[in-house]
């Protein structure tokens, strides 16, 4: 299909080319206007002091990039985003895999269980972040009430076991999850892991079904424990799926915005503890109308994602096992 023989480059071939372009036209127009053009326009804008509030725009060269990289808020945004990516991606993937492996055995209620784990993924991030805001409430939130109950159970058990020598081991003081900066990223990680785990689980389940059952049987005959089978069979053979999921998750994680915006009602968390790269872009473009500056920041985000994806592709090339 790749090389077209000369005899095909006839009138018929060009007729078909014209026909194909007609089929592609609607998609091409829309993509051209809203994807190809803005990608180029955006890099162009990033070299300008571009404001919507005036007619003329001023060329500033690399100044936007220099100022962004020198901005301490941007550095906070990078570090917050990275901390989020590093915590969220492995957690979401490993929990998804664990649940998939557990569900992959012959058990009853597989369907309903699968639905229960997957349900959070289809719900709107806005509505669900609202629910979590209520759960994280310091005084009346479900989380603190459950933790308080848990701490009193733990204390009673410890007191009983140590015959009253140790009492009040876990002094629970209602943390104010939404007001203390140190919890911000953790709050978001919990919500995101909860929401995305089911999606990973479904993809892992599909991948697991492609692993031949005979391999496990053979391993069992050879006296391998389920634990060993997991490490020696499941994990290597599922690696292409793991790779796909990790790429998707990392790209998605770098774009964190909505959850922060809703959980902290239109602010990037207490003392910028929830400032992310996309939030930084949003704030500069749509709250301060510095379009060139924000475009430069968006391009830095693109560069970071690109580098991460590239590094991951390199790193996993050797380790991924693609079966025949």
């Amino acid at each position, binding site marked *: 299909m790749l090389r077209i023989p000369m005899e095909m480059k006839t009138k018929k071939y060009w007729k078909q080319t014209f026909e194909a372009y007609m089929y592609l036209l609607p998609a091409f127009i829309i993509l051209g206007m809203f994807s190809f*053009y803005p990608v180029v326009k955006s890099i162009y804008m990033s070299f300008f002091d571009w404001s919507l509030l005036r007619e003329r725009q001023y060329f500033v060269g690399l100044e936007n990039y220099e100022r962004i990289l020198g901005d301490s808020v941007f550095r906070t945004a990078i570090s917050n985003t990275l901390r989020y990516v590093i915590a969220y991606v492995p957690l979401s993937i490993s929990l998804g895999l664990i649940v998939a492996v557990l569900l992959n055995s012959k058990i009853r209620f597989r369907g309903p269980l699968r639905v229960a784990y997957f349900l959070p993924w289809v719900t709107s991030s806005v509505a669900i972040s609202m629910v979590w805001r209520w759960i994280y409430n310091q005084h009346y939130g479900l989380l603190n009430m459950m933790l308080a109950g848990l701490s009193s159970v733990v204390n009673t058990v410890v007191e009983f076991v140590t015959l009253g020598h140790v009492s009040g081991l876990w002094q629970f003081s209602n943390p104010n999850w939404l007001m203390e900066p140190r919890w911000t990223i953790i709050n978001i990680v919990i919500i995101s892991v909860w929401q995305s785990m089911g999606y990973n689980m479904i993809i892992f389940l599909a991948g697991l079904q492609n692993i031949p059952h005979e391999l496990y049987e053979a391993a069992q005959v050879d006296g391998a424990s389920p634990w060993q089978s997991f490490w020696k069979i499941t994990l290597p053979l599922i690696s292409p799926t793991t790779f796909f999921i990790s790429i998707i998750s990392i790209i998605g994680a770098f774009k964190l915005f909505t959850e922060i915006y809703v959980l902290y009602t239109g602010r990037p968390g207490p003392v910028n503890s929830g400032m992310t790269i996309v939030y930084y872009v949003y704030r500069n473009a749509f709250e301060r109308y510095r379009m060139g500056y924000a475009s430069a920041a968006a391009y830095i985000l*693109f560069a970071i994602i690109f580098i991460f994806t590239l590094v991951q592709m390199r790193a996993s090339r050797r380790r991924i096992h693609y079966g025949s």
Partner: protein
Amino acid sequence: MLAEQQMWQYRVAKHLRRGVLYTVLLAGAVIMMLPFIWMITSSIKAPHEMTLRTIQWLPAVPQWQNYKIAWEAAPFEIYFQNSFLIAITVMFIEVIFSSLAAYAFAKLNFFGKNFLFLLFLGTMMIPGEVMLIPNYITMVNFGWVDTYWALIVPWTVSVFSIFLLRQFFLSIPHELFEAAILDGCSKLKYLITVMLPLSKPALVTVMLFKFIGSWNSFLWVLIMTNTPAMRTIPVGLTYFVSDVGSYYNYLMAASTFAMAPILILFLLLQKQFIQGIARTGLKG
């Protein structure tokens, strides 16, 4: 005797393992469901039940009127109409445009095919946030800010759908295509009468993804709308928060009905959904 004892031990171990498996899976599922349960029970609580310091799962008397109060406290009817209108329009236009493009890539030979396909795929690598600002300016120049045009037109094509459909079209035997064309069937007719009916699962996947993506989309709608008349459910919900503040029972009622259409759709089309996602993973 020994064999019997071993057998017995084996059985106990097996049951124990099963028991642990079920307990872990069930506990996990309960934790996953807790936010939903808490949302729904909170939504029917009376104000004084919202400020208890201990967990009360069910309200003494279900306050169903909370839903009515929340619904009337903001123009949710308009938000719902907008969300439905936009999601359905985008979904149908997108599936048509994507099928046409996917058909060309899958079945036709033409000049620049590989180049165009790579160009299309390339856009998937670029985060949407990079295009956000120029697209906003385009909308300002078109005078489309705060209109349905802005909320529909840019979303009518997705490379992801084109890719997914192309993969599916490729799996339909090419001989069928050649035979039909030889018999004088036009290419468009073949697409509509043969290809699309055979591709139902892929089409359903594409449409479901689009509907949900559109229903839940937030950032674009947030920056493109200024008036309540144009807002969709997610954006309307964030404005509702600033209006009612910390009346969480009303907030939870609003969150519940904001999620309801998607949850119902999902529960009805569970199978198609889960198969669709599995498909995206395998082909990716």
